[in-house]
């Protein structure tokens, strides 16, 4: 007996809707098994992981703080992935956005006033876009693989930030700690409801970005161009759409949004530059993008799910003492199952009983790829 994948004549609408949910369930089941193997009560562990963080208001604020950068980055990445450009370096663009945006409060702390914050956000957008333009240039000029170049540039950005905060940008009054001076109040992203918790404008940026990009992709000619070039590049060229331009558009849009997330995080949740400003948001956002089926509105929901794994990781560490690296395990499993379940959209699973003799020939034929070339 064996399993066979049979191609569906048309993609299944049912499964394109529920495949993220199946993936989520599978992640929880395997997660429970992992906890059991660690010697914890799986139900208790899952409770602390996924339910406990939702019980208090301040904790929901934390959830919004974590979800905001994930959503902003993932929304940009969805445009990239829809157009068949594989930007894996959002983490680096996030850091560069943070660095560019921090220039004003770090280097010119005396320049204050209501203009500071908008300028910082603008600089963050530019920094991220410029950094994302590098893999775009390399791809269009030298035909390099953007997956590799964008990924490698993440490490460059991380070390650049590390050098900045230990060297030239270190706080002169900071007792040699590797961090910049704290931002003055004009350079800090305002909190939404300071009475209840820390959630700041970042989550508003996230929702607005998601809605704007959703309109762009689904309702405008530019969005049509993105989808055509991604799904049928030759039809895109027939339409007269430029592939090179699209590579730059997709990379720089997603870079700009990652940069915006970076400066929002630095000026909002952190308030200064440190050697590490992201717990892997740029990578987790890839999972968010796919969990949201590359649809900006779906990404809002997916962003909160991933944010919960971060919060749950911290909560579970405190309450039951498992490593917070378990959060990474959950994120990895989620991506694994999301991509796996997507198979169900195009294929259905068929159970085949032990092949009778007559079928042996069919098997032999399938095992004959070298001669099927014509």
């Amino acid at each position: 007996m064996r399993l066979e994948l049979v191609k569906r004549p048309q993609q299944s609408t049912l499964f394109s809707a529920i495949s993220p949910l199946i993936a989520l369930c599978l992640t929880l089941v395997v997660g429970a098994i992992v906890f059991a193997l660690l010697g914890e009560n799986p139900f208790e562990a899952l409770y602390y992981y996924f339910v406990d963080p939702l019980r208090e208001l301040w904790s929901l604020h934390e959830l919004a703080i974590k979800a905001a950068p994930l959503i902003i980055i993932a929304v940009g990445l969805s445009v990239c992935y829809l157009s068949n450009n594989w930007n894996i370096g959002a983490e680096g663009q996030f850091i560069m956005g943070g660095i560019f945006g921090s220039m004003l409060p770090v280097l010119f702390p005396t320049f204050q006033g209501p203009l500071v914050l908008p300028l910082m956000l603008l600089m963050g957008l530019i920094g991220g876009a410029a950094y994302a333009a590098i893999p775009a240039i390399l791809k269009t000029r030298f035909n390099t693989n953007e997956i590799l170049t964008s990924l490698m540039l993440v490490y460059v950005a991380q070390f650049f930030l590390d050098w900045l905060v230990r060297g030239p940008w270190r706080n002169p009054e900071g007792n040699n700690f590797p961090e910049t001076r704290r931002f003055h109040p004009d350079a800090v992203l305002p909190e939404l409801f300071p009475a209840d918790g820390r959630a700041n404008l970042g989550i508003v940026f996230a929702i607005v970005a998601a809605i704007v990009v959703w309109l762009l992709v689904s309702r405008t000619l530019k969005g049509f161009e993105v989808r055509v070039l991604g799904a049928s590049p030759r039809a895109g060229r027939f339409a007269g759409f430029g592939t090179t331009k699209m590579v730059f558009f997709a990379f720089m849009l997603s870079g700009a949004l990652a940069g915006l997330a970076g400066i929002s995080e630095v000026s909002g949740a952190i308030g200064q530059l440190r050697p590490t400003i992201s717990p892997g948001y740029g990578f987790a956002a890839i999972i968010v993008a796919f969990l949201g089926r590359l649809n900006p509105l779906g990404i809002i929901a997916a962003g909160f799910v991933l944010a919960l794994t971060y919060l749950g990781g911290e909560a579970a560490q405190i309450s039951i003492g498992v490593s917070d690296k378990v959060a990474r395990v959950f994120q990895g499993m989620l991506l694994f199952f999301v991509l796996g379940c997507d198979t169900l959209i195009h294929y259905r699973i068929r159970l085949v009983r032990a092949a009778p003799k007559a079928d042996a020939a069919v098997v032999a034929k399938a095992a004959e790829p070298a001669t099927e070339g014509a």
Partner: protein
Amino acid sequence: MVFVQSSAETAGRDLLEVRGLTKIFGTLKACDGVDLTIAKGEIHALLGENGAGKSTLVKMLFGSLEPNDGVISWNGEPVTIASPSVAKKLGIGMVFQHFSLFEALTAAENIALSLQADTPLSTISAKARALSYSYGLPLDPEALVGDLSVGERQRIEIIRCLLQTPDLIILDEPTSVLTPQEADKLFETLERLRAEGKSILYISHRLDEVRRLCDRATIMRHGKVVGHCDPRRETPSSLARMMVGSEVKNAERPPSATSGDEILGICGLSRKPAGPFSMPLKNIWLSVRAGEVLGIAGVAGNGQSEFFEAVSGEARQEAGDAVRIRGQQAGRLGISARRLLGAAFVPEERLGHGAAPRMKLSENLLLSRHKTDRRAFIGAGGFVKSGAIQSAAQRIIKAMDVRKSAPDPEAAALSGGNLQKFIIGRELDRQPALMVVNQPTWGVDAGAAARIRQALIELARSGSAVLVISQDLDELFEMSDAIAVMHNGELSKPIPIAEATLEKIGLLMGGAEPGHAHVSAETADAS
């Protein structure tokens, strides 16, 4: 035309005998009761136009396709060839037109992949080397495939096939990728194999090769065997006539106004090959006038797709005047700018080129018309006016009688003929001054094909210029005011329809006459 009921039949026992072999795809009979016998030690040609059913027949002989009906006998015994490995065990080897080799591996490694896994590589290398020299096909087994020429790659395929000591070797269009010198070398090898008593089934549409090499020929048309003959006793023109068929419907075509202005001018267009299997274009001159349908005939792969890309602007030219549309230099313009000059294009591939498969028909409407109808379809801020594109799509669907299952289905959900009607209708809806169509009715059912041809003729009669590239000669004779032939990247002088005969066109298609390299724009519009 002399029909010889196989002079070789008396020479030896039949190695392969096929009776009534039939293969049905949906409603299309790709092979319809095909009979074929191949004797030991003969080179047997299988002749026919593209789509005649040659490949389907061969795939059934090699076990890649299962016949719906008919008997295959091997050495007098009826056999079922369920898979290529069964075919190999019987002693049938095949060399495909497009190779299946890994470029990053050596020749010997590629050969090893298709043999038993336990044979050591050094043994394979030695065998391959010995075999290659004994057949006059020098080959270095250690060479990386990526570094080899197309002819050398084909040698690997042939050696790989010979290592399995087959009795019957099937060669699918072997010379279509070879230079004349490489082809000569191949013929010597094939003649040597015949001398050793091996049988060869040689698929080709090149008449001179077949006449030179083959002992017998079986000619197929529209899925049926239409004749057997001894190619050495035929002339290229008699072979061509058998291949394309002699009965041509007289189309109801009102006389054309030949005095129209030139709409499309191609002046000395050349293009380097873009890839290993693409054809260079050599100094093409052409002029298409208002009110005229100009047909371009030719066997597939002789530069038609490359020519289409150059005319459409998907591939731009260095010289602005290489392509002129309504008197304007368009050579350096992209496809959108050429559309703005009044041109419309329909490529050969429907799904993935002319239409995006997973997009709705209304969205596919935007594909070719987002620039030309910007005002109608695109609103402020780049927002698509979905009401406007939907009503335009419905208008086209109605005008072209596109049959569909949903109000606005995905392009991939339509049958080939209905999608083609939509794609043609999408361009006709603009009333273009110039329409360039590549294979307008390829794989389209007869009803839809007639509808499409009629629409294109009507467009020309309303004062537009129409350029039709097609492999279907019946279609070209039905529609065109003049026919030019593309062969080997060159375009012949257009022959006015009154003077065109199947024989003339067939000869040009087979390359029997050298191409007219330099036809000036003045003589090109002799029609």
